[in-house]
């Protein structure tokens, strides 16, 4: 840290070390402590810092926050409605396809199919009866 860099830091960031570049803060503070005349450089910038602080108050945003969050909930509600409608539409389309296809796309178990056909294909009576 030399005087030129110290002057640059104070001219850009002001007199408050909290705003000085983190990587140079300790060196700049040490420079100021070792060079009493360096403190003179910070006087004008400290004055400007104090003036700027008159405009530093954060606005009351509680009403705006409520409006923004209400919009978010409405948006989330609309998104849910849209998802529900898409799911219903998909179910309806699937149902129509199944209906028109005569059930050929419907899943049927092979095991059930065997017992079903076996029951109806077996002869009702033994050959030697009557």
């Amino acid at each position, binding site marked *: 840290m030399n005087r030129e860099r110290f002057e*640059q830091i104070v*001219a*850009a*960031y*002001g007199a408050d070390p*909290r*705003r000085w*570049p*983190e990587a140079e803060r300790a060196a700049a503070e040490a420079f100021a402590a070792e060079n009493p005349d360096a403190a003179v450089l910070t*006087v*004008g*910038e*400290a*004055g*400007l*810092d*104090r*003036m*700027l602080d*008159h*405009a*530093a*108050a*954060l*606005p009351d*945003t509680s009403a*705006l*926050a409520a*409006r*923004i*969050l209400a*919009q*978010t*909930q409405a*948006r*989330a509600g609309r998104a849910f409605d849209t998802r529900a409608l898409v799911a219903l539409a998909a179910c309806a389309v699937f149902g129509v396809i199944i209906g028109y296809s005569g059930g050929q796309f419907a899943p049927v178990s092979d095991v059930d199919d065997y017992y079903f056909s076996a029951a109806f294909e077996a002869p009702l009576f033994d050959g030697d009866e009557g």
Partner: protein
Amino acid sequence: MIDPDESLVRSVGAGDGRAAEALVRRHLPRIVGLARRMLNDANEAEDVAQEVFLRVWREAPRWKPGAAKFETWMHRVALNLCYDRLRRRREKSDPDAGINVADNRPMPSDEWLARQRSAKVHAALAELPERQRAAIALVHFQELTNIAAAETLEISVEALESLLARGRRALKAALSDVAHDLMGDADGASQV
């Protein structure tokens, strides 16, 4: 790099209403403050903040922690929205835009004085070129680090320091005649 907003943003992206509320409470006042300093208009600043959060809700499900912190990204969005509005003002040349209507309601003298001081500083800030104003808003008022401020403005740290130094010089000149009143002490004028 640790991003203090990372888990909150992830929860917002997953539709967590409480996380959305926490994110608004954490950042809204600072975003409105930044927009007010850029636009010198309270109503427009609120509109900008609303637009910023609409983009936050849209981007949160896709947000991936990267080189920049979420707060830096929000500041960049807010600044770009402010630049758009300032450009539209110039195109329209609306003489009333950006001028706050004086509040003539009776109020205690201390409060009146504080508002007057704040208005003078805001007016001096409004006279600065946009980039200088943005640099001072980010570093002095938002208290971003030099690296975060440079990232937000998408410039180098050296360029940021140049903007800051020129902006502060211009502010000192603009406020020199009201320094005593603003400082509220006897040595105010001599210190600027």
